[in-house]
């Protein structure tokens, strides 16, 4: 099933590869390199899922997640944290901020499409 997914990552290589891997699966991909750019994209289009890099320059991913969850227009979007160093407690911080899931880097190209499909299949949060 094709879905609209916003990928937010400040690393251009990560942004490109994650986007391509999901495009191979038939998803429509929107991209943003930071929180500001993401908000511009979201002002225009609402995706079903956001893959959110946590360590963004400026406003970090957790802050942006909290902001989106506080906004009636965007609170129904499933947000999945995508971050490099899986340290103790990071997953809980992501869930506390409102993330529905947590994917740790290194990204496994074999597993990412399945992880995304599983998250898309989850019941959507009520608006």
């Amino acid at each position, binding site marked *: 099933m094709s879905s609209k997914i916003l990928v937010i990552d400040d690393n251009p290589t990560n942004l490109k590869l994650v986007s391509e891997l999901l495009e191979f699966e038939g998803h429509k991909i929107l991209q943003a390199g930071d929180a500001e750019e993401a908000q511009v994209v979201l002002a225009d289009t609402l995706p079903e899922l956001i893959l959110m890099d946590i360590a963004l320059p400026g406003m970090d991913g957790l802050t942006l997640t909290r902001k989106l969850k506080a906004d009636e227009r965007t609170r129904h979007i499933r947000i999945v944290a995508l971050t490099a160093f899986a340290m103790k407690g990071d997953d809980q911080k992501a869930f506390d901020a409102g993330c529905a899931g947590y994917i740790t*880097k*290194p990204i496994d190209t*074999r597993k990412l499409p399945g992880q995304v499909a599983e998250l898309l299949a989850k019941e959507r949060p009520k608006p």
Partner: protein
Amino acid sequence: MNITQEPKHTVSTPTRPNRATSKKQISISLMAALLALICSASPGMAGQAPVDLGWAGSFAILSKSGITDVPTSAITGNVGTSPITGAAITGLDCAEVTGTIYTVNAAGPACRVEYPALLTAAVSDMETAFTDAAGRALPDVTELGAGNIDGMRLAPGLYKWGTGVLIPTGVTLDARGDKDAVWIFQIAGVLAVGNGAIVTLSGGAQAKNIFWQVTQATLGTTSDVKGIILSSTAITMNTGATLAGRALAQTAVTLQMNAVTEPIN
């Protein structure tokens, strides 16, 4: 310091003998003291962060100059070569890989997927990971066992050798209940694992958190190794050797009826 070596023989000459104590009792006491040392906390040892593999972490086997296989091997995880073309993957059949074989061009095994952008990123990240592992400062232990760590039980930490390292029969890595415990082995030479040698994980140790930074690695026949091998040159797996981890080589990877299984992230 948490580094301990399993006693290979009983120490029977105490420094302060008690006339009322038999040699056997003294030996037992010393053994108990050694065991206490094994289990003791290590206030001076700072936990290492794992080495960030980036996109190289998507591969069970990644090589810059080719992969040669004598079938039948069983690879669980992705396989890739770059910058060398897919033609440098020889002997490896699609049926041997549970994963994707990525190449930079339309050459190589029939099931290959051309994805040069992914491979370029992965190779770059592999080199960065090697540099990170090699550059970690303030090792907890240096020149342990003069390069022969056979029979030792090693706590998490940063270990450094200015030589190669030998594991003739086996070594145990003991996390003592900390599933996030990390080992980084900085080896300025060849990691030589003996025929039939076993790297044993204990106390919750995980292969994904073990990093062997080496100039070259040779895994002996039927040896059983765990961890991420970051090699500046080749990784050679002799007949029947198994690796629960990743073989990330800046030159070639040679397989001969092996099993390589990527760790669970």
